[in-house]
């Protein structure tokens, strides 16, 4: 394992302090924990809270700021934040209008957020949640539902913009759910990442192999196969998405998200084919986001997300945002 870290047990805290120091005008770290909130808290509008394990940087804290999150709750490496931490964040940013939690659909995340929300409700805080399950590689019909992937970043943008407009809690939730209806993601991985505490790779993959549909922590995907070139890989991934959701004649946002170990160079190569392929299908691309938005440490691979836009969602997508990662 070659990583530029210090003691593994201090990793999560050092990541948080490093992020807070980089953007002191936007971020404020709560004392004695890694919870990150906005410098200027809202007073009257719905507050938005999101959390995920450490190792997915810049998520979650990179999306704190005007137009997106009010609080970000990072957990330990690849594990959900615990309810006490989520509750700290909720308490800090709560307003009369209430708090909306955005949750990626992993059992641990869902349970920890549910527990935190129960505790918050016992304190009289109005709190609700939206669970994002955008991964087409996992089946819908299972009672656990689909996993959540990088598409959640787009939902944070949409819900954050709606909340800034002063919409009530129910309204912000409904808009987030509506955007999530037209959101699909598929991932691919070609190299594992190494968990710092034990030095073990997150999964095994042969030198010439790749796996389509793999989850953010190395959960099994749909196809393990010989390494393919960018064009063939993207084609198979887009086919999975379009089989699952009909985007014909739609206008979409494309998010090509690097997992941390795949250079932007390759993501741009992927993007050229994505544009060509979607044009053939009669799908209009309104905007494309390319970069490392939700990573898995140094895992090699990327994901493609499509989110359908309507005029309202388009306005929210374009609305002002001032976070460390997304600025409009």
């Amino acid at each position: 394992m070659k990583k530029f870290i210090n003691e593994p047990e201090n990793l999560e805290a050092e990541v948080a302090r490093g992020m807070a120091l980089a953007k002191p005008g936007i971020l404020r770290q709560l004392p004695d924990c890694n919870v990150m909130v906005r410098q200027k808290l809202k007073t009257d509008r719905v507050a938005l809270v999101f959390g995920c394990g450490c190792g997915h940087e810049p998520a979650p804290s990179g999306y704190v700021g005007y137009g997106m999150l009010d609080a970000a709750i990072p957990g330990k490496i690849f594990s959900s934040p615990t309810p006490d931490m989520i509750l700290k964040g909720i308490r800090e940013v709560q307003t009369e209008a209430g708090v909306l939690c955005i949750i990626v659909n992993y059992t641990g995340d869902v349970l920890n957020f549910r527990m935190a929300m129960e505790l918050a409700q016992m304190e009289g805080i109005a709190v609700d949640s939206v669970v994002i399950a955008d991964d087409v590689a996992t089946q819908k019909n299972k009672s656990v539902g689909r996993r959540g992937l990088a598409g959640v970043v787009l939902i944070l943008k949409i819900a954050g913009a709606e909340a800034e407009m002063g919409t009530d809690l129910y309204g912000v939730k409904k808009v987030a759910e509506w955007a999530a209806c037209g959101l699909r993601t598929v991932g691919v991985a070609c190299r594992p990442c190494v968990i710092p505490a034990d030095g073990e790779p997150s999964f095994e993959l042969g030198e010439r192999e790749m796996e389509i549909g793999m989850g953010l922590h190395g959960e099994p995907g749909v196809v393990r196969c010989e390494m393919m070139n960018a064009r063939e890989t993207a084609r198979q991934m887009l086919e999975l998405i379009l089989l699952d959701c009909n985007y014909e004649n739609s206008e979409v946002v494309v998010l090509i998200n690097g997992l941390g170990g795949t250079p932007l160079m390759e993501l741009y190569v992927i993007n050229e084919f994505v544009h060509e392929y979607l044009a053939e299908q009669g799908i209009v691309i309104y905007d494309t986001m390319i970069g490392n938005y939700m990573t898995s440490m140094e895992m090699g691979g990327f994901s493609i997300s499509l989110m359908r836009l309507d005029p309202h969602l388009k306005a929210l997508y374009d609305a002002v945002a001032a976070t460390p990662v997304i600025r409009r």
Partner: protein
Amino acid sequence: MFGKDYMLDALEAISRDIIEHEEELNHLDNVIGDGDHGTNMARFARIILRDLPELKTNKDNMGEILQHVGMRCITEIGGSAGPLFGKFYLQAGMIKIDNLEMEEANLVAAFEEGAMGVAHIGRSTEGEKTMLDALFPAVRAMQQALEEGHGFVEILQAGAEAAGKGVEYTKTIQASKGRAAYIGERSIGHQDPGATTVMLMLQSMCRTAATRSAGLE
């Protein structure tokens, strides 16, 4: 009637047993989950052992002790087991116990409350290969033993035996909740680590009660 001393002894026994079974629980979880159930539960158990002297001097109310254990589950275990076991203890601690002693009916009521809490937060029920497959049968067996007029030891014994059968049952079914659900049919043949922990907890409580009641005679 059992009081605070019994509860603290039982917590100590539960913690020691969990630590003793750390590797076994990790191994069970390795097959169908991410292999850290034992490590996570043992981390919690070590904290509880550390907390015991303080609980002995600072807490009188049994509900408060259970609430403390619940909060420790939430902050120390992590993953899915944290909120699930946390909910069990928090909810069990909400039953009203009028004095410092607990009667048989209080014990069974606490278990019932706790089990309902777990089912609610997990949006789950029996037959999904989870801790509920040990917990619900245990509650039913304990209720029956209570109705038949048995004492603490027999009630906990009935609970532990039913939980054991529940653990065996989890080997025969496919997971539809939690991480094990993603591997579908391949989860059949393996016992659920969460249900195993529930069984261990009941066995520890039962042993503590037996030792105590032998000492009282």
